[in-house]
């Protein structure tokens, strides 16, 4: 499958994401420039971590107006896959492609650590290869990762199983103590109603080798290929189920 990684001015994890996809996962990945008005026909667009446009004003608030974001929105509306990581998640919220907002961490400081997250649903392109309830070790590094939304939104997300990852302790319990940034419902990642757009605060691209701490992030990238394969297989199977004339 083909991935595209958007480079905004101030993106920091673009190189690591490209390398993880190309060299570790083994898929094709191309950089997408923020001034481009197309996503060049990729299957999945990644909005990487960093400080797009310096994160001045508000994280992701300026990036959502960059030319490439129109193409990303169109790609998402057409059912294409979109993964926002950290600053990318913030941009997706600012662009209205995901609900809620990401605000200052409860502790008011930038926080870098490896945390435990629980997979809440395998029905997304990036958790399709995981089992619900499975625990992953992934790095986080953010100053504004506290996800907030109104009660109705949280209830809807819970009901529709759209919370993708939750912060937990090492035993998989989503306790307040295991919540690093004060996110509502311990949310570490969520998806849109159509399930093709996912935002994550943890960084799978920094967790692709045991040598550098964890390789659990690989599962998320590899899931996408399987998800597309399922969709494609489903598409082929469907006609066979239609009764003949």
């Amino acid at each position, binding site marked *: 499958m083909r991935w595209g990684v958007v480079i905004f*001015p101030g993106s920091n994890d673009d190189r690591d994401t490209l390398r993880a996809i190309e060299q570790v996962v083994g898929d094709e990945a191309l950089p997408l420039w923020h001034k481009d008005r197309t996503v060049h026909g990729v299957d999945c667009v990644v909005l990487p971590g*960093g400080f797009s*446009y310096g994160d001045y004003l508000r994280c992701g608030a300026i990036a959502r107006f960059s030319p490439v974001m129109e193409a990303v929105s169109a790609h998402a509306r057409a059912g294409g896959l979109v993964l926002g990581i950290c600053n990318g998640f913030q941009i997706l919220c600012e662009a209205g492609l995901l609900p809620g907002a990401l605000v200052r961490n409860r502790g008011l400081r*930038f926080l*870098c650590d490896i945390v435990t997250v629980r997979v809440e649903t395998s029905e997304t392109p990036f958790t399709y290869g995981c089992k619900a309830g499975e625990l992953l070790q992934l*790095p986080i*590094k953010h100053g504004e990762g506290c996800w907030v939304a109104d009660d109705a939104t949280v209830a809807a997300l819970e009901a529709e199983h759209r919370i993708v990852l939750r912060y937990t302790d090492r035993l998989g319990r989503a306790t307040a103590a295991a919540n690093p940034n004060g996110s509502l419902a311990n949310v570490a990642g969520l998806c849109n109603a159509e399930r093709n757009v996912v935002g994550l605060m943890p960084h799978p691209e920094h967790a692709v080798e045991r040598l550098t*701490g964890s390789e659990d992030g690989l599962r998320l990238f590899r899931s996408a290929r399987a998800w597309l394969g399922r969709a494609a297989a489903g598409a082929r199977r469907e006609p066979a189920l239609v009764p003949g004339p």
Partner: protein
Amino acid sequence: MAIAGTAAIAAEQGLTAEEYERIRALLGREPSVEELGVFGVMWSEHCSYKSSRLFLRQLPTTGPQVVQGPGENAGAVDVGGGLAAVFKVESHNHPSFVEPFQGAATGVGGILRDVFTMGARPIAILDSIRFGTLDQPRTAYLVKGVVGGIAHYGNCVGVPTVGGELVFDPGYERNIIVNAFTIGLVPADRIVRARAAGPGNPVMYVGSRTGRDGIHGASLLASAALDASAPDKRPAVQVGDPFAEKLLLEACLALLRTDHVVAIQDMGAAGLTSSAIEMAGRGGAGIVLDLDRVPLREEGMTPYEILLSESQERMLLVARAGAEAAVAEIFARWDLEAVVIGQITGDGCFRARWHGNEVCALPVDALTTEAPVYRRPAHEPERLDEMQRLDLATVPIPADLGGTLLTMLESPNLCSREWVYRQYDQFVGGNTVLRPGGDAAVVRIEGTRRALALTLDCNQRYSQLDPYLGAVLSVVEAARNCVAVGARPLAVSDCLNYGNPERPEVMWEFQHGIAGIRDACLALETPVVSGNVSFYNETEGRNIPPTPAIAMVGLLEDLDQLLTPWWKNEGDVIVLLGRTREELGGSEYLAVVHGQVRGTPPWIDLEAERRLHQVVLTAARERLLRSAHDVGAGGLAVALAECAFGGVGLGVRVRLEEDVRVDAFLFGESQSRILVSLRRRHLRRFEEIARREGVPCTVLGEVRGHAIVIGDVINLPVDDLRERWRRALERSLGA
């Protein structure tokens, strides 16, 4: 016509009456105000190294591994595979004391530019930061500000901060230390230097616009002692914009992959003036600048202000004639300006024009090679003899040694630094193999099995008691920290933080510090390839302890040889390499438990140190070791506990040695010791290697259970110790 300067204006630029006379003699005329400003910064201690230059020459700077020694923006060493590691450490002490957040942030920004200006992509940052004691009301504010500033800048630029040191000592109460280190990688044949050449070549200005910030940062803030008016110097502190730096970094690296550039230099201390003059000086060229073409942030700036502004995130470069448009196009992609503001000439002069009038016409030599060099008077501090006296008979052995260990582990200089480094992005780049908390940080060289070990160390207490030995031991500790992760020490960058050089005691401390670094670096074959001198660390007459911070870069030939400090398996044998002597002088134990800073620092035999390195590196190559950890501040008991704090939290059971006092055995800081653990079946082979090198090798006990058990004097559960060690700093800071 420029206004003629006077001796009074010269004094305002930080020039002495003698220096002013020397300028008049060199020029054969009265300098203009602008010219005096230029002399003021170029002859400042910060830019000219006038008090240190004579002594810096003693440092070893060559070796087969050296690609670039001192004199460029940063030094460089060969790390194999055609790659060079480019690195340097630099101080930002006074700005950080005056305004901790921006001072520390711009310190990081400056050192990053020194590295990427050579074409190297920065791969890691380390910081050595030192403050007064935590009982002082301003300390917590300064710590939070400095750590926040480092985090803000490094995180936003996207370079991981992977290590460093944090020290509290009453000697820094009125003059904190902020030293920032950056290392980057570049193909050795693509290193770009800062030597202007080629008359007619255009001089281009790139990056942020010039404003009125930071004027006199180099001359009046960095080259003078602080007094009670320190807060009034806030306007001399620059304000950093890491986003602008990130764009500049990407644009410069893209540019330096082409052949459009002859020379490039960061506009750091003394801004446009020093970058233009230093590039011209190195290349033996002249340079002419049209100041009215400099992009400005505000209207109405004078040529004097434009010359001396220290606005951040700017670079000056010499392009090949005809490449101007190509350079501008690369910068335009990142929405940055690149404009021609002058050209290289053949007349050896620095000229600056303002709307057609020449406001500066100075021979480059007069500003660089003709700058004054001082051999300032030096004599031994009188208090030293008295401070070195320590009668151990007057030091009582604590009754509760377990409680003493706990006190040590919770003390500000030994407790966990987690509160600090959790604020730093340690992951970006995807090559961080050993994060902060080990002996040295380890960063992989991308695409290879090799890695760099990085450490930044200094023991100011040893230096205070013996400036020579303190410097030797700082180098040795940095090297040993590299060895403890399995890396061979390669080279050094030094940041020499001292007091006011016009005081003979300070000059004496400095000279002995240089001699110590020289001797240790010669013995360990780790040349000094870059560095920085920071004098005038004096506030209201009080000078800091000598603080020669040593950044050591080591090379790990194969990541399979990586060693970490933490116990791995129950039943592994614990072995101490090196000899424990009855040494408590200058120790953390003496300071924390007995409230004394006195005695002589531990004894060191540099040849024995070398052999110790040999044993550990040989054993690492043969994969004999499960863990290795330097025995440093806090001594053996603290080291044993630290090894239990990572990984699964295994404990130890070790015996007491009877030939020294029990507190010297537990907390003494005898040098040339490394604590290792290994499988029992490898013990004989390991002992054979140690014997061959003549390194004492003592089986202390084994990895066992979940408690630290030392003889019958200490028995404490690991979990409890670790929790208190982890939380101590956050609690002391009231964070």
